[in-house]
C-alpha cells in the first residue's frame, strides 16, 4: 500500500466507524414466556470502503469523494453550542457535495445529525435533527434534489467523542454527510 495514502485511509475508516457503527449489528427479540420466537435481523457495515486507488502525482484515480485533496473528502459540519447555523467555512465543502450529487443523480446522501450528551435523549435527537436539516436545506439551496437526501438524527446515541468535557461536546455537535453506497 502506498505509504502516503495509508494514514488517510485509516483516518477515513475511523471516522466512518464513528458515524455508521462499523461492525456487525445483530438484533434479537425475546420475551419471557414460551418459545423464543423473536426475529433476528442482521446488518453489516464495512466501515470505510477500503482501497480506493493510488495517488500518482496530482492525479487521483479513485473515487473522487475519497480524494483527500478534494473538499468531497470532508464530511462533517460542526455547530456552535445551541446553534443550528451552517458556518461559512463549510460552504466550499457543501458546494462540492452539491456538485457531485447534481452530476450523479443516482447518488444519495444521508445527513446524520448529532448532539452532545447533556439533557433529554429525545430532545437531543430533535437537536441533532435540526443540525441535519440545516445541512439538508443548505444543499437544497445549492440545487440538490430532495429525493437524493435524507436528514436523520442520532441525537446523543452515537458520540464520536465519548468524553464528558466541552471539547468532546463540540465534536459531537455535528452533521455528517454519508453517501448511501458508502455505508
Amino acid at each position, binding site marked *: 500500500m502506498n505509504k502516503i495514502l495509508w494514514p488517510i485511509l485509516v483516518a477515513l475508516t475511523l471516522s466512518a466507524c464513528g458515524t455508521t457503527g462499523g461492525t456487525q449489528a445483530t438484533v434479537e427479540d*425475546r420475551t419471557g414466556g414460551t418459545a423464543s420466537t423473536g426475529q433476528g435481523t442482521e446488518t453489516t457495515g464495512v466501515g470505510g470502503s477500503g482501497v480506493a486507488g493510488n495517488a500518482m502525482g496530482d492525479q487521483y484515480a479513485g473515487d473522487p469523494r475519497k480524494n483527500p485533496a478534494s473538499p468531497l473528502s470532508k464530511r462533517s459540519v460542526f455547530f456552535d453550542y445551541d446553534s443550528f447555523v451552517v458556518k461559512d467555512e463549510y460552504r466550499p465543502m457543501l458546494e462540492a457535495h452539491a456538485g457531485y450529487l447534481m452530476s450523479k443523480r443516482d447518488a444519495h446522501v444521508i445527513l446524520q445529525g448529532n448532539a452532545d450528551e447533556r439533557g433529554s435523549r*429525545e430532545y437531543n*435527537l*430533535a437537536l441533532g435533527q435540526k443540525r441535519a436539516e440545516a445541512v439538508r436545506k443548505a444543499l437544497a439551496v445549492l440545487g440538490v434534489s430532495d429525493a437524493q437526501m435524507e436528514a436523520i438524527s442520532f441525537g446523543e446515541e452515537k458520540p464520536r467523542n465519548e468524553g464528558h468535557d466541552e471539547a468532546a461536546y463540540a465534536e459531537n455537535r455535528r452533521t455528517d454527510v454519508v453517501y448511501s453506497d458508502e455505508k
Partner: protein
Amino acid sequence: MLDCPIKKVFVSPMSVSMLRAVLLFPLFCLALLSAPFSARAAMEIQVIGGAANKIAVAMVPFQAAPGQPSPALTQIAGDDLNRSGQFRLVDVSGAPQPVMPAQVDYGVWRGKGADALVVGQVTAQPGGRLEIRFYLLDVLKQTQLAAYSYTITAGQWRATAHQIADLIYAKLTGIPGAFSSRIAYVQKQGRRYELRVADADGQNPRTVMRSNESVISPMFSPDGNQIVYVSFEDRKPVIYVQSLKDGHRRKIAAFKGSNSAPAWTPDGRRLAVVLTRDGASQIYMINADGGGLTRLTRGSNIDTEPVFSPDGQTLYFTSDRGGSPQIYRMAASGGEAKRVTFNGSYNVSPAISPDGRYLAYISRDGGRFSVTLQELASGQTRVLTDTARDESPSFAPNGQAVLYATVQGAQGILGTVSLDGKTHARLSESGVDAREPVWGP
C-alpha cells in the same frame, strides 16, 4: 410547597369470610414467571430517607413449608413496603411468632411500637403447589384488617409477595399499591444494548430485545401486553411495537427522516409519535398497527416528547417554539398550545401523574438536570432530587413515586423518589449502565 401527606387510614375491620378470597393469578403472570432468563443478575436496591410519620408494621415470618422458595415472602413484601418510605418495619426477633390471629398477644406488639401486624403460614399442597394464608391485624384496635389465602406454584412466589405488599399498603394507606407493577429500561454493557422488563423492585429482569445499536424511549401499552420503543438498528431512529407475550414486533413508523418519542393514548389504540418526514420534528398520531397517520402540530420548530393526560383529552409535550425548550399542553384533538413551565431555560421530558394532578419533568438549573414536580392546578413546583444528570421521569401506577434515570459516579442508574421528595431508592447493577426507565402497569 406541595402538600403530599402520608395517609394513615385504618379501614374498618371486616369479617374473615368477607375478606377471604382465593386469588387466581392472571395467565400472563404465569408466562412471565416461567421465563427462561431467571439466572440473570438483577439490580440492587438502596433506600435513603423516608416519610416523617411512618406506619410501623411488624411482619412475622410466615410459618414455612419444607422446600419453599427463598427469600421469604415477608422479606420480599417487607422490602417493598420499606422502599415506599411510608413504613417502618418493626424488629420481630425475640418475639413470639404467631401463625393465626387467635395466637396473637397484642400487648407484646403494642410494646414494640407496632401499628399493624402481619402473620401467616405457607403449607405444601399436592402437585407441588403451595397454600399461603396471611392476616393483617390492627394492633391498637386489636382487630383484623384483612385475611387472604392463595394457592400458587413456586414460580408465582415473588408475584405473591408483591400482591401481599400491595394489600398491606392499600389497607394501611388507603392508596392502591404498585408493587405488582413492572418497569422497563435499557441497559448498556460495552457496546451491547438490552431492553429489559423487570418487577417494580428491579428483580426478575427479562431481556425482551437486544441490539448493537442504541434503544431509547420504551413505553408499555396501557394493558401492559406490548411495549413500544425507538431502535437505531436500521441506522436511523425507527419506532417498533413489540408483543410482550410472544416477542413478535412490527415497525409502526419508519418514515423518511427520524421517527421517535412514541406515547400511547390511554385507550391503547393510537400513539403520538414525532416524525421529521415534513422537515422539523413534529407530533403526529398513528394507529398502533402503523396506519392512519395524521399530523397534530404544525410548526417549523421542535415539538417532541408527547405524553397524554390520563383522560386522553390533553397532550403535553416539549417545544422550543418560545426560544428555549419548555413544556406545553394542547387539546389531543389539536389546536392552540399553552405553555406550562416558566422557571428556567430548559424544562423537558414531561410525565403526568395517573390522577392528572401533577407534572413531573426534568429542569436544568445551573448545569444540573433534576426531577421536578409541578402541581398543575396551582403551578407550584418542587425539585425532588439532588442528583445532577436526571432523565426520563415516569410515575408509578399509583402515582406515589417517580422513576427516573441518573448518573452516579460514571454509571447510569435508576432511581425512585416519593412525591414529597423525602424517600429515595436507587437501583443499580454493578458494571451495567441503566437508562431510559419507564414505569408500566
